[in-house]
């Protein structure tokens, strides 16, 4: 039987991978992909706790997380296309519209 702590450690490692990607990558599409990694790490935690506590609520929350992830992707890619039209670039360094 796999102990719960292993799932928590796996989920923490995957979350950290996603966080590092969000903080250091230059391509904004890859940054959005890394957000998906973080959401999936959280989903693993929810399902693991749901299995170990014999409560179905964790799986319901994963359902909502997937819904919000789909909404986030649609909006995020819309913003990326809009930014690309404005700046002709997908690099984080070129986005300085809010800079004084």
């Amino acid at each position, binding site marked *: 039987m796999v102990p719960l702590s292993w799932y928590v450690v796996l989920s*923490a490692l995957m979350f950290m991978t996603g966080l590092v990607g969000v903080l*250091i990558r230059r391509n904004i599409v890859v940054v959005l992909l*890394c957000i*998906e990694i973080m959401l999936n790490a959280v989903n693993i935690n929810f399902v693991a706790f749901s299995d170990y506590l014999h409560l179905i609520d964790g799986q319901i929350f994963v359902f909502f997380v997937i819904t919000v992830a789909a909404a986030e992707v649609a909006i995020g890619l819309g913003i*990326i*296309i809009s930014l690309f039209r404005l700046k002709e670039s997908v690099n984080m360094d070129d986005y300085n519209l809010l800079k004084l």
Partner: protein
Amino acid sequence: MQQLPFFYFGGVALLCAVLVIVFRNAIYSAMALLGMFAHVAGLFIVLDAPFLAGVQLLVYAGAILVLYLFVVMLLNVGGRGPALHKQAPAGIFLALLAIGELGYLVFRSHFYPKLPAIPHPDVPTLGNTETIGMVLYTQYLFPFEVASIVLLIALVGAIVMARGRTKFRQE
């Protein structure tokens, strides 16, 4: 031997997650993400959640990833130039800080062994999908409706933002 599926699915999912941020080309990153979604679905099956494994494959691998691939191909973004942006050192510092904090939290936590299921002899046991449906449409009905509104707003917002030059943006 029971731990073998956990190590396979978890290990490959973690490896794919690392490959997503290592590859320079965004298409390769998206493909690595596809492998990660598939292996996370495998972890869900190991954890007795077959319905979520199916939803994970259908929604993430089937819909979200295809959307990413469309945008990557539409924008034609190659792997040219440096992979890291100008402020990456500050980002690495923040990431190390967060890794230290999370590691401290995980190793300070106490985990209890798996609880035995509470037996209900007079209640018939339902399958995973039936249980999720029962709970979703009774206890979580209001969040379910809110989720539909979130999806509607995302639909309208995505169309408005990706549509291009509209009247209010002309100067």
